[in-house]
């Protein structure tokens, strides 16, 4: 009996010891992290402090020789590998490994079907099979995995003064900070966009010239111009459509009352319904559209139009004015609308124009994409050493040998520098088969290419649309004219639950607001606001207000 009691006490003691031991270890680790974090912060702020002591993890490419570490990296598969190569066995995968082997790292790519990346990522994360570098465009997923403890805090791999130097130089602080949560912990490495140009206003220049009109600068001038184009059509078309806005991002900027305030503009961003409710200027935007609709300047059933139909109207010469993606008029990948239009209607021309002046303050505002593209993060299934190697890989991608070579290829083979130092493609067809099919997906730290400046991007992109170079340059310049209002990437906690109902209300009432008789407009818009409140828009606006007020309080 005594023996049994002794054993029980011993067992209990061991259990307590074990639990307390675990607890201590945890606390210690946590403390170490905090210390590490704070010392890093100090050193970053102080600049020169701690310059002699090297960080625990070395993530600048070339600063450390790893002992044959193998990392797995997610790679979007678009089923577009040319003959003779596969997504995981090709010249560029070998090129990556040649360079990474020099520092003792082997990179294995895990292909994921591009369109279903989120589903696949969720399954892999939940089952512990996610690659060491996993990526997504939905930051909310990455942040929530981090908050649940499923991914690594990259702060101690990147923030040290001697860590990830190439990455910091290429991405810049603004882009790097997008991957931080409210506690400034780095949960992911965000890719930098080469340009944030998003949307453009396009107009039929030939019609404008024939009617002796000048480029509209305000909404009222726009109304007059398109009215004349439709009712006094130079081509004698009876089916002319005054305006179609595939995306009304820049049009809305001309009416917004919050764009001049960074915090308010951020709160109103994220979904059209947020702006409709939060931004008093949106009432005037819809009133303007309603006026256009009732004047017969819009397609009667514009709300049922598919993107293909939209492009068809433009390519057949029926549209006077439209808002579309930044390079939508000449983009080869969007169907070269202008080229097709000129085949159908000889002499026709479409140009992009600068954003209209805001009706409230007379300034020009342009909508821009968020500064960041996709986000890379490391699941906890990877060891610390692997994460160190992953960050080294991402650091290498920010170098000339890395991202630049993957994106532009090699001088003499894929491109030559012009007099301004811009890489100019030698043979587009060769490039598309040799590297273009995989370049955007391999280059994880940049979206739309490796470019030092927006101008380099514009010059290089213009070369890819032969015959329409000036259009491309004008398009990108116009899209970033005036004050740029960049998209935000924050998703408030209630948004996923409420957004479906909000979208339904938005879709129904925005159409009603535009198509109702002018006399009923205010009543319809008021009803829209009430319906939005019923489905909980206030909660989202409050959450966004709290988040962005906090975020920008020092700015």
């Amino acid at each position: 009996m005594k023996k049994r009691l002794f054993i029980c006490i011993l067992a209990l003691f061991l259990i307590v010891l074990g639990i307390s031991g675990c607890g201590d270890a945890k606390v210690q680790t946590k403390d170490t992290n905090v210390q590490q974090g704070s010392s890093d912060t100090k050193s970053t702020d102080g600049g020169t402090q701690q310059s002699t002591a090297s960080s625990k993890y070395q993530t600048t490419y070339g600063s450390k020789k790893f002992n044959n570490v193998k990392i797995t990296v997610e790679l979007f598969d678009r089923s577009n590998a040319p003959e003779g190569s596969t997504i995981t066995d090709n010249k560029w995968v070998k090129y990556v490994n040649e360079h990474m082997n020099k520092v003792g790292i082997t990179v294995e790519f895990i292909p994921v079907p591009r369109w279903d990346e989120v589903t696949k990522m969720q399954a892999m994360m939940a089952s512990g099979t996610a690659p060491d570098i996993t990526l997504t465009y939905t930051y909310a997923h990455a942040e929530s995995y981090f908050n649940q403890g499923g991914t690594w805090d990259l702060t101690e791999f990147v923030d040290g003064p001697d860590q990830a130097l190439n990455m910091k130089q290429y991405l810049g602080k603004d882009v790097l900070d997008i991957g931080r949560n409210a506690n400034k912990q780095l949960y992911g490495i965000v890719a930098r966009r080469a340009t944030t140009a998003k949307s453009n206003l396009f107009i039929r220049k030939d019609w404008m010239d024939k009617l002796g009109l000048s480029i509209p600068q305000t909404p009222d001038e726009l109304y007059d111009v398109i009215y004349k184009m439709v009712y006094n059509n130079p081509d004698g078309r009876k089916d002319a459509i005054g305006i179609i806005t595939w995306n009304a991002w820049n049009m809305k900027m001309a009416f917004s009352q919050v764009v001049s305030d960074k915090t308010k503009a951020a709160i109103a961003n994220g979904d059209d319904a947020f702006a409709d409710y939060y931004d008093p200027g949106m009432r005037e935007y819809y009133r303007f559209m309603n006026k256009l609709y009732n004047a017969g300047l819009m397609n009667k059933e514009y709300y049922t139009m598919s993107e293909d139909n939209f492009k068809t109207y433009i390519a057949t010469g029926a549209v006077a004015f439209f808002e579309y993606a930044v390079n939508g008029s000449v983009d080869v990948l969007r169907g070269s609308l202008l080229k097709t239009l000129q085949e159908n209607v000889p002499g026709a021309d479409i140009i992009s124009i600068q954003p209209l002046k805001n009706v409230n303050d007379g300034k020009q505002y342009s909508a821009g994409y968020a500064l960041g593209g996709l986000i890379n993060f490391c699941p906890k299934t990877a060891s610390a050493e692997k994460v160190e190697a992953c960050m080294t890989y991402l650091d290498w991608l920010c170098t000339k040998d890395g991202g630049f070579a993957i994106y532009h290829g090699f001088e003499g083979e894929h491109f030559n520098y012009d007099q301004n130092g811009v890489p100019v493609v030698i043979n587009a067809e060769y490039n598309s088969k040799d590297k273009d099919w995989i370049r955007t997906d391999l280059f994880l730290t940049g979206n739309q290419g490796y470019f030092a400046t927006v101008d380099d991007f514009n010059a290089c992109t213009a070369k890819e649309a032969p015959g329409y170079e000036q259009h491309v340059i004008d398009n990108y310049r116009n899209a970033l004219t005036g004050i740029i209002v960049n998209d935000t990437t924050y998703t408030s906690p209630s948004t996923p639950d409420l957004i479906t109902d909000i979208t339904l209300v938005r879709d129904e009432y925005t159409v009603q607001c535009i198509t109702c008789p002018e006399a009923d407009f205010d009543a319809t818009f008021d009803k829209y606001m009430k319906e939005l409140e019923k489905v909980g828009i206030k909660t989202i606006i409050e959450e966004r207000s709290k988040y962005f007020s906090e975020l920008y309080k020092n700015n």
Partner: protein
Amino acid sequence: MNVKHIGKRNITVGSVILYFTLTILIFICLYPFLNVLAYSLSGYNAVLSGRVTFYPIDFNLSAYKQILGRTQIWIAMRTTVFVTLIGTATSLVLTIFAAYALSRNYLPGRSFFTGLILFTMYFSGGIIPTFLVVKGLGLFDTLGALFIPQAINVFNFIVMRTFFRELPKSLEEAAKIDGASEFQVLFKVVLPLSLPIIATISLFYAVGYWNSYFDALLYIQDPDKYTLQLRLRNLLFGEELNTSGRPNLEGIGTEVMSQSLKMATVAVSTIPIIVVYPWLQKYFVKGVMIGSIKG
């Protein structure tokens, strides 16, 4: 005389109206397919200008060349054909065994097992738990993952069980009196009488396997094991992401496919399975008839 006779018998106002109406109905039914084919075979300008209806304009095969010119498509086609054949055979064997056994009144625990199977029709484990099971069984990234986890479709199982149950009992009794075992009864008596239902269920399974893409998406890692539908879907949408208003997307610099390519993809994915229909048609019709007589 003959012509007159035929004319006299067939051409009445009623039949003209009937045939005219039916022709229009056929056209309405076929129009979407014709439109798909016409788009897939039309020239670039015609497609972008919206001039294509039900016949190709500026006939060209470039969309098909683009799709069928890719080795990956043929590898995927091979995988899909393999999975469809093996999967259908596996499903059929398992469904027949399960349905036959559970259609016998004398099987102990019959309703318990049927209940277990029926339960899965209404409640599933969800994506992640199922994924973990597949991974735990060592099926992850193997072709087996594409047909073993869903080998038995409960609906097909019920249809087959009901069919077996309605076969006259006296046939089975007669065979048993002659000394047949359970297997002999199944193979020599029941199955030969069940060809219509087997053909019907085979078709259901085959179409299911042919169209399946989600299992391949989840359970397959190696691109050489992608199924045709996953490849085509990837081909179709993977390059298509554009500025759809969501700030998180890539935005510019992505590729958009022409309508022709989309339509050619639809044609490539549906035509092979449509070709199989006429071969099974006779069984299919017969199966439906037998069901209706007995029902």
